[in-house]
Structure formats: C-alpha cells, structure tokens
C-alpha cells in the first residue's frame, strides 16, 4: 500500500515536470505531412488599421496553397517578447520591426541576416531603391528590409485657422506658437490651437515634436563626433530654450494643460478634438491621419511640419520586415517578404512604401500632401543609434524632464541640466 502511494507520488512529480517542460517549449511553425509550408507573420499595428494588410495576406494564401501564412497581431511592437521567443528557439517566422529596434535585435543575432537571400533572390528594384537602409544595417549586414516609410506631418482644420484670421498653416515653429495662441484666444478656449501628447511617459508623442524643433534649429540630443565617440549635441542654453518653447505653449494657452497627461498621438482627445473642432492643429503619421479622415472627412488636411521642408528637420520612420533566426523555411519567408513589398500591397495597406519606385507608382490623395512634400527631406533616427543609450531611454529621460517643467516641478534650466547629465551617463555606458 505504502509502495503504491510512493509510486503515485513519483508518477505525479514526473507528470508535473513533463507537463511544465511541454508548456515551456514551442517553436515556429514548419511544414506538415502534406508538404505545405506554414509561416507565421507577426505585425504590430492596431487591428483596426490592418484590414488592408490582412486582405493582402489572404490573397497570398489563395495564390500560394503550398506556402500558407498566418498573420498575427501583437500590438504595440514588443521586441523584447520577440527576443525571449527567439532565445528559446521559437517565435514568428516573418516579423515586422520598427526601424529603431532593428539594431537591438541584430546585435544578439535574433534576426537572420538577409544578404545571402537578397543575393540569391534579388529584390525587384535592388536595394538602391530602398529608403532608411541605415536603420536596418548593422555590422555591414542587412537584418531587415525597409518596408514602410513615414514621418509626422502637421494635421489641421483649415476652418479653425480661417476663423482666427490665419490664411495658411504655420511654416516655422515661431508661427506655430503664435498661430496656436491666436486660435485658442479667438475661440475663447473652445478650440485649442495646438494639441499634442505631452506626458512624461516613454512614448513617442512629444518626443517627435521636440526633436523636430531641435533639428530645425541645428542641434540634436546626441551625435557621433569625428573621432567616432558619442557626445551630446546641444548646449545647456539651447536645451533650456527648447524646453521654454514647449512650456510656453501651455503658458500662453496654445495647448491646454490637460494634454500633459496624454501620452500618444492616437489618443481620443486629439483625434476627437480634430474631428469635432476642439483642436485646431496636431501632428500625426500617415496611418493615424487616414484613420482620422474616416471620422473627420474633409474637415482636416495636412501640411509639412514647421520647418519640415528643410533637410533633416523631420524623421523618416517606418517598419522593416525581418526573418527570425529560428525560421525553418527562410527561403519561403523571403518569398513572402518580396510579395509584401510589391505595389499591390500598398493599394490596400494604408502605409507609404519604403521603396522609391513603389512610392512613385502610388496615387496619394491631395489631403496627404503634407507627408508627400516632407518625406524627401526626412532623415532617420539612425543619428541616435549606436550609442549605449537606446532611443526609448532617451525618450523617457527627455519626456520626464519636459513634463516636470510643464507641471512646475522643475525649472527649464534644471531640467536641461538633468537631461544633459542623463544623456552623458547613458551614451557613456
């Protein structure tokens, strides 16, 4: 009897361990007994913005019964989860990666270098046709292929500007501040002149505007000097003046204080504000603007950001397509990537292609002129990549300190000092 109980205990323990082991193992999907290859494609845009992409994938599945693709959405982008999966030998086969994250995934070789596949099965227009190649190249190899390109354009309600006696959208940062203040005052506070997410979170919301302002004024947060070392690229007084500019938007009433708790440019208070007229101006990437148009219609349009037609004053962002190092069918994965890069994809997928030739072949609606005019002048965040400090860490440091000034916790000069010392410590490693 006792022996039986002991045997049961051992069996339970063994079953438990086996169960846990089974739970901890996974793997990318391979091919089944019928010879059909199954690939998992993971993308991170919100489900509402990818119906066009889903139809592109469905079309692929119809055309390629031997290579079936399952599109997964993991929103927002979570490169650390991808790293965890890849380090345990699993993960999606084809993955959409923001440009800023490619280097972090390339360094520990979580992605597959694409050079040999590109050589064997070249892209339709070659790599010379691609934008943002610097963002996907690491150690002399390409770890992702640039797929989409975007930037932030000024999104505004022409009627709100006209009501305040303003005939054209602001072309400089000074004009933006004065126009936004005039709109807020003229409307008696009913229409906020300039709406933007100004929270201290490590998000991209105010980070883009701050950088655009700085780049337009000839400086940035960090740069690589001629000796190849990372240094800060702004003086204390320049940074103080930048903080004062953004804080001035709240002080003048151009931006209501409530936007200090908004941490995303897709926040409903901005999107609804533009749609219902309680906001006159904001900035947004193409897909956010296209979503806004669905509710606001022709009441909103775009223009280049202030100073956005000056080279390097705005960022060239977007997403690359990469192959997981654990993919069992890299050749088929590459074939699928080439399909996703074709002009047909961008007829239904609301993004701009990172291929110059594909971009030229598209007919862009008139209200997206702001993006089209600005894109050729945009430069990637590659200028910040390569130091020991990830861009997201810079975002958190900068956003927190700007937010501390808006909320009265800190003065602009103290915040500038904190940012500079944080940057120096971060890039130094």
């Amino acid at each position, binding site marked *: 009897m006792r022996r039986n109980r*002991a045997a049961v*205990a051992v069996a339970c323990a063994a079953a*438990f361990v086996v169960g846990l082991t089974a739970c901890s193992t996974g793997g990318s999907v391979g091919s089944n007994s019928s010879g059909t290859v199954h690939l998992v494609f993971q993308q991170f845009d919100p489900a509402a913005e990818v119906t066009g992409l889903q139809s592109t994938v469905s079309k692929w599945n119809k055309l390629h019964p031997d290579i079936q693709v399952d599109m997964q959405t993991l929103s927002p982008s979570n490169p*650390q989860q991808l790293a965890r999966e890849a380090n345990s030998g699993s993960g999606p086969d084809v993955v959409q990666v923001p440009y800023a994250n490619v280097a972090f995934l390339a360094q520990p070789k979580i992605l597959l270098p694409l050079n040999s596949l590109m050589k064997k099965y070249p892209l339709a227009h070659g790599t010379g046709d691609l934008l943002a190649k610097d963002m996907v190249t690491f150690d002399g190899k390409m770890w992702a292929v640039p797929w989409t390109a975007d930037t932030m354009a000024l999104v505004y309600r022409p009627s709100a500007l006209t009501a305040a006696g303003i005939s054209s959208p602001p072309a400089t940062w000074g004009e933006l501040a004065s126009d936004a203040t005039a709109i807020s005052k003229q409307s008696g506070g009913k229409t906020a002149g300039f709406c933007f997410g100004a929270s201290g979170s490590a998000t991209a919301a105010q980070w883009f505007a701050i950088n655009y302002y700085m780049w337009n004024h000839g400086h940035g947060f960090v740069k690589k000097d001629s000796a190849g070392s990372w240094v800060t690229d702004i003086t204390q007084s320049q940074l103080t003046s930048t903080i004062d500019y953004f804080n001035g938007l709240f002080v003048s009433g151009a931006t209501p204080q*409530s*936007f200090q*708790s908004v941490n995303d440019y897709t926040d409903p208070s901005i999107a609804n504000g533009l749609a219902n007229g309680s906001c006159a101006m904001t900035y947004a990437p193409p897909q956010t603007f296209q979503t806004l148009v669905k509710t606001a219609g022709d009441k909103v349009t775009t223009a280049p950001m202030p100073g956005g037609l000056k080279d390097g004053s705005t960022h060239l962002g977007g997403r690359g397509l990469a192959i997981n190092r654990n993919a069992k069918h890299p050749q088929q994965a590459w074939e699928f990537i080439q399909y996703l890069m074709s002009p047909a994809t961008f007829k239904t997928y609301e993004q701009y292609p990172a291929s110059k030739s594909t971009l030229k072949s598209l007919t862009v609606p008139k209200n997206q002129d702001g993006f089209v005019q600005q894109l050729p002048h945009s430069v990637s965040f590659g200028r910040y990549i390569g130091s020991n400090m990830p861009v997201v860490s810079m975002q958190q440091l900068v956003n*927190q*300190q700007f937010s501390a000034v*808006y909320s009265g916790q800190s003065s602009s000069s103290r915040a500038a000092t904190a940012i500079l010392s944080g940057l120096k410590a971060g890039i130094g490693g």
Partner: protein
Amino acid sequence: MANSQSTRHEPLLLIGPALIVIALLFAFPAVYNIILSFQKLSPYQSPGEAIWVGLSNFTALFTNNQTAEAAWNSAFWLTTLTVVIRLVLGMAIALLLQSDVLARWKLRGVCRTAVLLPWMVPPVVAVASWKWILDGNTGVLNQVLVGLGVIPRGIPFLADTSTVWWSIIAIVVWRELPFVVIVLMAGLQSIPKDQYEAASLDHAGAWKSFLHVTVPNLRPVITVIVIVTVIQTFNNFVYVWLATGGGPGTYTQVLATRLYSAAFINNSLGQGAAIGIMMSVVVAIFAIIYFRLADRENGARA
C-alpha cells in the same frame, strides 16, 4: 530491511511534488534575481551573455536621488494613505452592510453584490475607465463639474501635481476596497451577539459598543488586512503605470515603475533586479510581522 528503507524515503517522495513546485516557481526565480542583480544583461540577450558587474547595480540605485523619491511615493502615497483610507471606508461599509436596516429592507444581498462589483473589474479596465472619467478635456467628472458651474474649466486630474496622487488613490481605493469589506464583514459576523447585549445592559451607546466590543474583536482581522494590503500595494505596478506612467515628470514614480523602466526601457535587467531585491526586503519585513502575528494568534487559540 527493504521495507524500512522504503518507509524512510516515503515522506520525501510524498513531499517531492510540492518541493519541485516551490523550487521551480519560487526558489529558482528568487535566486536568479539575486544573481541578476550582480550582472549586466539586456532583455535582448540570453542569460549566458550576462557580464558580472559586482555591486555597481546597487551603487547606481542608491546614488540616484530618484530612488528616494520613488521609495517615499511607494511607502506614503501609494501604500500608507490607500491602506488607511481603505480601512476606514471598509469598516464603515462593512458596518452598514451588517446593519439591521438593510436586512429589514431586504437590501443586504443587493448591496453586498454592488460593493463587490469593482473587484470583478480587471485592474487594467478599471484604470482605463478612471482615466476616461478624470480626463481634463472630455472626462465625465469634468463635464459634470463644469456643467454644474462648480469649476470654470476642466481640471486635468492626472496631469496636475495637486490632484494626481489623490486621483491614483481614488482608483486604488475604489478597485481594492471590496477585499477589505469582505474580510471585515466576516470578522463582524464572528463577534458574539451577547457581547453587544451585555454592553447595551451597561448603557453603552452605539459608539461605545463599537469602541469596546467591535474594535477589540476585530483587532486580529484588522492586523491581517493591514499586513496583506500593505504587501499587495507596496509592490503594485499596474495602477500608477497605467494611470500616469510615473508622471507628470517623475511626480508619481514608485519603486515598481522604476523597476520596469530600469529593466525594460533602459534595458538593464540587473538594475531592475536590484530594485526588486530592495522591494523584496521591505515586503519581507511586513511578511515576517504578519507570520509572527499569525503564529501568536494561533498560539493564543491553542
């Protein structure tokens, strides 16, 4: 002989599964966290790529003045205030739910269910709803207050330093209050009725009965509530992170949000582990107090 050997090993075999669970789910992660706090490792690397850095993660932690600010916020705003408010409100609601008036009106069941509702809402949904209520532009609370003429324009509750902590406290108390109410109600139900009758014979009013009968009887329950809620709240990450992300500026940073930022934004798992150890030490002190009190209680009963 063989039989006696099997008898000797049997207890070990019987507790084996439990030991495996403890080792896999508790001991290994705890030990690995300690190891990690002496290493430099990013979330993109595998554990084998870690570099030993000695005490530098702890040095960085204790030389950063944000740590003291976050520790104060965790201890005072997030924990002490919310625990005290929960206890006071919880006691009031528990007494109300036990009252004869509610029983007479047959409202006891409905009221108890209503009190439990916030606990059924996932914390993420609760915070998202509260953010919508408290929004400075479109929030329901501001719309009502402006509509009634109480305030001229919306208050950005989660962006203003004078209101942000009270807003977070409101969210935590609303979501976590039912636990306190349930436990106190259980405690109230266990108080013998004859003690109240004796107090009444001694001409004790409601307040004196509460002070001299209810509170002494509930003391062990209150102790358990305080200890458990302190441990739960001190470690909490969700409420602050989702409501404010630690802002405005660093005004609502707590140790848990600092841990997340260090580990997953600054990509330093070692520094995150060091903060985790610091938090564990604080919580361990409370846990020890809790177990001591629980032992004393058991001893007294025995």
